[in-house]
């Protein structure tokens, strides 16, 4: 009889633990599904002179976002969702600045803006 009670108790405790773990995983899964939305990519000034700079901000929502930046020409300084785009004298014209945002499950979205360098 005692053995049955002990076995029943262990079974119950195991069930509770499994239930709690399952609930925890459910919560995580809910977090994983926060959709990635890259809503805006905006420069403080979209026309600059060579030798000057402007800040560029990416606005996005999602989980554990990573921002990756590149420019067709010119320099990108800083990191994260706001960077500084700077133009050396050798790249006048229309230069593209791209930002790719990646979330925790490797979804990506990319936006590009043009900066005119005079």
């Amino acid at each position, binding site marked *: 009889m005692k053995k049955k009670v002990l076995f029943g108790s262990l079974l119950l405790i195991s069930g509770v633990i499994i239930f709690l773990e399952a609930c925890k995983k459910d919560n995580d899964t809910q977090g994983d599904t926060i959709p990635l939305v890259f809503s805006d990519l905006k420069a403080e000034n979209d026309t600059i002179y*060579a*030798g*000057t*700079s402007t800040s560029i901000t990416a606005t996005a929502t999602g989980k554990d976002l*990573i*921002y*990756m*930046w*590149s*420019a*067709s*020409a*010119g*320099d*990108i*300084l*800083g*990191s*994260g969702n706001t*960077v*500084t785009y*700077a133009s*050396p*004298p*050798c*790249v*006048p014209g229309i230069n593209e600045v791209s930002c790719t945002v990646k979330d925790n499950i490797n979804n990506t979205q990319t936006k590009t803006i043009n900066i005119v360098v005079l």
Partner: protein
Amino acid sequence: MKKTIFSYCFLSILLFHHSGVYSQCFASPGNPVAGSANLGVLKKHSARAILFFKNSQFSGYYEGDKKSDFKYISLAEYNYSGFVLGYGLGKKITTEAEVGYFINKTQHYDFLNLSLRGYGFSNAVISLKYNIYKSLPKEFEFSIAAGAKLPLKTEPQIVNGVTLPVDLQASSGNFGMVLQSFLVKQYPEKSLRLFLINRYEKHFNENKQAYVFGDAIASSFFVSRHLWFPWTSLTEDFTAILQIRHEFKKPNDRFSQKVKASGSNLVFVSPQLNYNFSELWNLSAIVDIPLYQYYNGIQLSNKYGFSISLSRDFGLEH
């Protein structure tokens, strides 16, 4: 002794043929230092290893041959380490391989106290050198070399999520070729050597940042004197070298368009001191000083360069 040292002395002439001096916006198309000191070919089955380090600094802008008020980068610099291995395949033919690593390639900006840093492997150069003419009585030698330039990395470097500009990429990303000629005339009775080295470099493909570095031509004239004097033995292991170098670089292409602020015409003077020990080892120090600088458009100019190299010969008994 004098003759022996003079014969074996590997004059560690570092060819700054395409150092950052080709900077348009600090971009350099290849390894800062290349070429071995042996301006002729190595003896059959002998080898030479060279390890070198170079620091170069750039500051101040030029427009044409005049200083400009333009402000953008306050200081750019790189520290580069390279390794060259040469081997005498035959009596008249030598093969050489060079690889290099940028410890850093850094730009400090005039605004916001910001800087960017690139690093990594540069390019490899594999070449064959052939001795066309050699006259022992005339102490005269003429050799040519042809080689392939291979980028050790073709994908642009990304640091903290930011793709670095082409100026800071360690590898040019361009495949290319290098042609060279070497003229050597010696005056053993005066412990004197004269060298003339010409180098032409061409890049073929557009790299991943849509960049093709322009063709480059460099001519260097060297005067080297073994510091042997009858009244002292203190300096007998030293050689002084003075180099005058002209470098011409055509503009670069980006997206198949000429980059206006690229390409240059530069003249340098480079004093060098070489120390030979055990007749196998050589230690060299060299300073690179710009004498004349002309840049297309507005470009960051050269300040100075400093290099140190250590080399060793193997199998000279053959």
